[in-house]
């Protein structure tokens, strides 16, 4: 067990401090719906020409479930999501079809009636906060970039970037494992790999809050990992500040092998595990950004990213 003074010296941001000093202070309540609802985020992003996975369809009412066969039609690769879900809950990734069956990323076969049940569950609010009724979103499957092939197991890795007042302050790559069931959510057992802001190279890796050095399923070591097109990704993340206006947020970005970096979702309450993955506390960088001159905050995304990269 660490002492509070030791954590403070490492600049570790705690949950209470995050909630009070950053989220409550910099994120206006009125802006939450924009990020809590993935559909709204997607529409807002499309308006600003920020790339997102293509929206295939939406189901909002029970009666529409009858017609899903015609909605799905011939699609063979798609993702079903609750629009207000979190933590990877309720996300169904279909990677192919086999006659009447739909194939999940782990090879499991589903029938149309399984999909219908899943949609019903989402509509009735099973996966949303507080059980509120939800809508269902169909989006195109992201096919991840080849660089990640050995770093992930049955799932798309995503890059989490914490953006504070429009400045990217910390980044990590989250890779699915067998334990996380193909989802890139850390508390389910995905691996978090800290990324160097200036180079996009790996720093550190953790699973279940404990350091690891290689992927448990593929055995690939994380040390040579380097994200291609790193600056472009950071600019994309920084640009989200203009889009939603949240002072403290997490941007989840995936690298599609055809479309390049796309925004998967935005998060108004990003978790703290990124500190473990990076082996560094957030506090120092957050304090630095808080101390920035007002004119720095006016800079366009590209310059904000460059400023940050030079600073760390």
């Amino acid at each position, binding site marked *: 067990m660490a002492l*509070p003074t030791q954590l403070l010296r490492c600049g*570790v941001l705690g949950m209470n401090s995050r909630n009070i000093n950053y989220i409550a202070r910099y994120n206006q309540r009125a802006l939450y719906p924009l990020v809590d609802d993935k559909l709204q985020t997607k529409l807002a992003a499309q308006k600003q020409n920020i790339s997102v996975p293509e929206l295939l369809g939406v189901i909002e009412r029970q009666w529409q479930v009858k017609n899903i066969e015609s909605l799905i039609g011939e699609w063979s690769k798609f993702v079903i999501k609750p629009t207000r879900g979190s933590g990877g*809950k309720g996300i169904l990734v279909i990677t192919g079809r086999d006659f009447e069956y739909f194939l999940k990323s782990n090879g499991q076969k589903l029938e149309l009636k399984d999909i219908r049940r899943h949609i019903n569950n989402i509509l009735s609010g099973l996966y949303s906060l507080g059980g509120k009724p939800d809508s269902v979103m169909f989006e195109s499957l992201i096919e991840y970039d080849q660089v990640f092939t050995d770093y992930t197991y049955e799932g798309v890795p995503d890059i989490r970037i914490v953006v504070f007042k429009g400045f990217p302050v910390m980044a990590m790559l989250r890779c699915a494992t067998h334990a996380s069931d193909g989802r890139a959510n850390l508390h*389910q057992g995905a691996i978090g790999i800290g990324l160097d802001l200036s180079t996009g190279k790996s720093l550190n890796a953790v699973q279940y*809050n404990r350091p690891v050095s290689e992927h448990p399923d593929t055995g690939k070591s994380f040390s040579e990992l380097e994200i291609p097109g790193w600056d472009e990704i950071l600019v994309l993340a920084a640009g989200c500040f203009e889009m939603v206006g949240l002072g403290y947020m997490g941007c989840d970005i995936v690298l599609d092998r055809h479309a390049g970096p796309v925004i998967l979702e935005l998060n108004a309450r990003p978790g703290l595990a990124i500190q473990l993955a990076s*082996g560094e506390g957030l506090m120092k960088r957050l304090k630095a950004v808080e101390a920035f001159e007002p004119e720095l905050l006016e800079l366009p995304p590209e310059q904000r990213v460059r400023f940050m990269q030079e600073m760390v």
Partner: protein
Amino acid sequence: MSPRAQVYILGLLLIIVGAGLATYKSQVLNLPITPGKYQTVWTIEAKVEFQARGDAVKASMALPKTQTNMEVLNEIFSSSGYGFTVDSNNGNERATWSKRTASGQQTLYYKLDVYQRQGQFEASIDGMSTAVNKPDWSGTRFSAVREAAASLIERSQQESADTETFVTQLLRGFNDPDNIDSRLLLSGFTDNSPVDIALGMLAMADIPAHILRGIYLEDDRSRLPSSVLLEVYDGEQWLVYNPATGTKGLPSNFLIWQRGDKSLLDVEGGSRSRVRFSILANNVPAREVALKQMGGDQAALLDYSIYSLPIEQQSIFKFILLVPVGALLVIFIRVVIGVRTAGTFMPVLLSIAFIQTSLLNGVAIFLLILAIGLWVRSYLSKLDLLLVSRIAAVVVIVVILMSGISIVSYRLGIEQALTITFFPMVIIAWTIEHMSILWEDDGPVEVLVQTAGSLAVAIVCYMAMTNHYIEHWMFNFPELLLVLLGSIIMLGHYTGYRLSELIRFRHMVQS
């Protein structure tokens, strides 16, 4: 002013005002800070019921005798629409309710608070008649029972040395199922109770005796009839016997309602009358008992405390005043320690249920309902129900489980389980729902972690809420609520690390 400064100023202000008021009360008004010894005060409710015929009604009921080892603290009569008087002749008090016309089912209440004093019961000799009324067991119809009684009396006389031992022998013989005389006696009468027969035999033996009506003080009894003991005069003093066993002496928890043969309840103008008793135990600080005994001046001190409310309201208030303590604890445990629980205030509700059911029973019942509920819910999830109807279905299942547990355990003789009704059903149904989603998404480990967390928090709240000191403080110094409020507000602005984070981030320090 920044929100942070406001929070601290407001919080401190509330704490200072609350603590100041409490200090003032304890220093200037001499309200003790420690609760002192606790004593059981029994609340007994006598419910008089009868069917009125539509004419004038007069109901009179004997009132409990003052008994040397019991003290009556408080009496309340309810007499809606009735005229009411209490009269006493030769030390026998009777309450009389009267009304010009009444019809249909009538219910009258008499309630009293009693506490058991140290010391022995001493039966007074005054006012009790020592005349012996021989029973009229003449004629051929009774010849067999006469013989049997005489033989029982004779045998007991041979086997005893004095009146005291004689009565014991007589009652033992009479209660012996293998004794032929006793069997003859019991079957020889159709409308006499065994106690009447015993009294008849004592009269045949020239021993003055009468019945002693009263109730046994046991917690949580309701709708009991009165119990009967025998009182026998040995020439110098009255001795008490249990007619069913022959044991001598007054049981220490027996409250004497009436000595002598007069009826407990007389109703004129009504039929099917009866008296039923309900008994409840309350733990009250000894000091409060003393104050109530004295009445008058000192009691005025407490006029504005919770203790000035009637007992039933007090027990409701008990929970209301303790809930903020639980809330503060929950916030502390979440914000400072960082325990993960299912639902924020679910543990507080759970701990209130535990207070009613007792801790072990409560935990066992909770785990049982949760386990069965999860199992049933896993089946329901296959039926493609809407969320609302699924939760409603789980509520119904929880209710069925609760009824089932109550009935089964009642049959097994575990009365405690009946208090299970205090479980917050809807909250438990939500917990089951929450846990089953958790199970599907995050696996059984997370379910275990959260169940254990919720239970641990509920147990901590239970400990705090049943602590005599905390109870005493919240009762006597309700202004401490301001202190709680202040602390809650300040905790809401606590930005330090959680205890759990010291563990979570431990690897960062080493590197």
